[in-house]
């Protein structure tokens, strides 16, 4: 899961704070659909020129790494994705049916069991220094990123490739499963395990191509304007902890990519300055003070933003706010306590949480996997709707079976991150049907570590997708081997088998059906987790000044499609 910013860190906000998102029944669903993915019809009226100052992307602190090989936060990858284009991109123009399209890859094909993928690279693409983008540009990148002396936090992704783990472990000089043929313009990748969703994964920023000039470059590269890529923008100057300035890459031409992505030939704006702020409230004040054109919504200021500005509150984000259940906890976990978990889930008034805590701006979750993920289906959870009578009945049945609670159920969360009111509503909801529960705030710095080490009973969690695949929510969170061994104790062989089958199924509809079955086992048969809400967008801007600003479900803005209303 990517962080938006450490401490700053992103996620703390998204996952934790109150920001965000407008309810589904927003203003105009038709408009929303048209906006997704850059809205090519609107783009015909957009004009080149002008400069933008963004106060949102780094509103929670600066960056550690802009090199896509090393970057980990959403804000960092906003820059990386603007400087580097990867093999594929997800087209969200139909939010209900997002599709993977080719960026640098013209096409791709796999063998029958989805273990070998061959990508054909488009001719005529260049890095901003004029050197060509070739299959070997990717091979170079992968080898650099998996060098154990250099590897970043996402380098484990290279273990997807055959021989990738050996390279990461220092047992091999190169990844045997990646072969580049510059003459044929093909990049052939052999995977360690079948992975039908691999084209979506390979679009992740860690897999960006690298120019020859990146050869031998370490962390110092990203601290200079020498870090060049093949994306729509390039660094105007060395990035600092005060600002990162991007200007259009003259070598880039978005019309060479898949037409459905709706990209312009060149970015509309002549310069974007991403201003760093160490404090989100200050960043919002900066926006109100007219120091930039784009701001980030912050807790307690959402209504003010909605009243005065345009926002991306209608744009869904690939993130889920949920409560993890420790299946090994005798009070609440395991098959004997399924009715108790059902009672808890049905007792929670998710709409009240949305209204009272999030100012009516989140989407009440009806499953774990959010809208925007290919294969998404609404309403997979049978017990996620507020139904106090059914909850009462389930709790009674659980008690009639000889069970009882000797002490309140502890509900854990990371303190001082905006979760207190959510937990309080849940405690009140549970109290209304007679289930005793108590809030157990935990130190934020160590929260996830402690929970994963077995401290969780019923603990708050959040997840933002790394890449837009169903398995990034199911497999990476709930499989028996998830998270280095699934310390939350959820393990169901039927669930695991369905996921394994889905991952190797190349037919999208069949794969989606398998994922749905797995998610229903998780949510309905086992009640292995309790979804609360899905995240939505977080940007604010003046529509008289900024045009065509759309937040992708990946949380990213496609900056090359953003324009000034009157440049």
């Amino acid at each position, binding site marked *: 899961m990517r962080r938006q910013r450490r401490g700053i860190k992103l996620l703390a906000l998204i996952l934790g704070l109150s920001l965000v998102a407008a309810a589904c029944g927003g203003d105009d669903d038709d408009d929303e659909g048209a906006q997704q993915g850059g809205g090519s019809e609107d783009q015909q009226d957009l004009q080149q020129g002008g400069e933008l100052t963004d106060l949102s992307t780094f509103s929670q602190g600066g960056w550690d790494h802009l090199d896509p090989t090393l970057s980990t936060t959403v804000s960092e990858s906003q820059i990386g994705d603007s400087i580097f284009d990867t093999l594929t991109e997800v087209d969200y123009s139909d939010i209900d049916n997002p599709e993977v399209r080719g960026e640098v890859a013209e096409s791709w094909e796999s063998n029958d069991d989805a273990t070998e993928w061959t990508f054909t690279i488009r001719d005529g693409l260049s890095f901003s220094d004029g050197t060509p983008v070739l299959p070997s540009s990717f091979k170079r990148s992968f080898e650099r990123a998996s060098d154990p002396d250099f590897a970043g936090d996402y380098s484990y992704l290279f273990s997807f490739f055959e021989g990738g783990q050996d390279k990461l472990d220092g047992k091999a000089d190169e990844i045997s499963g990646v072969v580049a043929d510059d003459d044929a313009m093909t990049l052939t990748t052999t995977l360690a395990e079948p992975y039908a969703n691999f084209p979506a994964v390979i679009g992740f920023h860690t897999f960006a191509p690298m120019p020859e000039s990146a050869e031998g470059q370490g962390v110092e590269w990203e*601290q200079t304007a020498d870090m060049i890529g093949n994306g729509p923008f390039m660094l105007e100057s060395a990035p600092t902890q005060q600002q990162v300035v991007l200007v259009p890459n003259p070598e880039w031409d978005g019309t060479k990519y898949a037409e459905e992505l709706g990209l312009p030939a060149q970015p509309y704006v002549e310069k974007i300055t991403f201003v760093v702020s*160490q404090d989100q409230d200050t960043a919002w004040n900066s926006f109100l003070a007219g120091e930039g054109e784009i701001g980030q919504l912050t807790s307690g200021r959402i209504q003010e933003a909605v009243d005065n500005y345009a926002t991306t509150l209608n744009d869904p984000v690939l993130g889920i706010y949920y409560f993890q259940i420790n299946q090994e906890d005798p009070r609440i976990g395991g098959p004997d306590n399924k009715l108790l978990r059902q009672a808890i889930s049905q007792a929670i008034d998710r709409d009240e949480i949305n209204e009272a805590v999030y100012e009516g701006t989140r989407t009440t979750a009806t499953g774990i996997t959010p809208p925007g993920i290919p294969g998404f289906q609404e309403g997979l959870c049978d017990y996620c709707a507020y139904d106090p009578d059914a909850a009462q009945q389930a709790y009674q049945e659980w008690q009639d079976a000889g069970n009882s609670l000797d002490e309140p159920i502890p509900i854990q969360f990371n303190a001082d991150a905006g979760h207190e009111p959510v937990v309080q509503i849940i405690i009140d909801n549970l109290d209304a049907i007679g289930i005793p529960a108590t809030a157990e705030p935990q130190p934020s710095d160590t929260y996830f570590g402690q929970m*994963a080490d077995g401290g969780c009973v019923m603990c708050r969690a959040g997840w933002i997708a790394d890449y837009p695949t169903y398995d990034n929510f199911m497999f990476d969170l709930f499989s028996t081997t998830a998270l280095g061994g699934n310390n939350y104790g959820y393990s169901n062989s039927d669930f695991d088998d369905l996921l394994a089958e889905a991952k190797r199924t190349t037919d999208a509809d069949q794969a989606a059906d398998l994922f749905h079955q797995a998610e229903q086992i998780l949510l309905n048969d086992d009640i292995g987790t309790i979804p609360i809400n899905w995240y939505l967008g977080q940007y604010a801007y003046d529509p008289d000044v900024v045009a065509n600003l759309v937040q992708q479900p990946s949380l990213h803005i496609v900056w090359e499609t953003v324009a000034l209303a009157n440049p």
Partner: protein
Amino acid sequence: MTSYIIRRLLLIIPTVFIALSFLFVLFFALPGDPANLIAGGAERNIPQQTLDQINERYGLDNPLYEQFTDYWQRTVQWDLGESYLSRRSVNSILGEKAVASLRLAIWAIIIEIVVGIAVGLLSAIRRYSLSDKLTTIFTALASAIPVFVLGFVMQWLFAVKPNQWDWPEWARLRTSGIGPNSWALFFIPTGEQWRYLILPAIALASVTTALLARMTRGSMLEVLRADYMRTARAKGLRERDVVLRHGLRNAMLPVVTLIGLDFGTAIGAAVLTETTFTWPGLGSQIAQSVSDRDLPVLLGLTLVVVLAYAFVNIVVDVSYAWFDPRIRLGKGEHA
């Protein structure tokens, strides 16, 4: 005097050693796996492979005593290591941040001394007047209001509202950032720089200025009643000379002590001020390093802060002799 200064300088060595060693041990004593925290474990679950990688890269799975001795071997050679997160050299981070902090601190100290002493002095001379009462109220307020709250209020009043009222650009102060970073003679802002400097400088100075004003007032009130003041007046000196040459100089002793002690308060205020105004100095970096558990950066910056604190207090102690020639440092201070 020289031997006194040398002894005080030598005392810095154990002070620094104890302070940094304590911090070092505290880092590992705190709950949570350091590698997990470095990888962002406060916000997400981290794959084991990433944790192994971080442990190996920074030797975090080595025995603590090995890490401890290795740290001090490097530190005595002024090799402060590299940031766990950005992998940048701490020496280079330090060089960059210290300059920004120093500039802000210089202006905060100027405000503190000029405003604090002047207000305290006037308040004492005009005791129980309206201005004295107002001073009491405002200094109490300034001491009580948290720096970040004051920061937000000032941003609202001097940046947000002027924008809504369409004031000319030059009349709007900036909410954050260091701006063009253009200076003359190291610390004098040039061009647009003052618009970025003024709010954080005031915020940083606010608490210590208020304390200084109150201390100056109290100290002056005591001095004004002293016999030697009456003697000075009886000699026919002008009131201004009586107050400034005889009164203020004598009242300065406790005030100077306060300035030295205030340095610690100022460091705390700098953490909040620099974070609130995104001033790229040591304070905001320390705050970030704490939240990131970026130990090398935290230790490197703390080292500098401890050194600065020690030096400031040596200067304060030495200055006693100037304010009061009866004090002879290094000879009869224990008598």
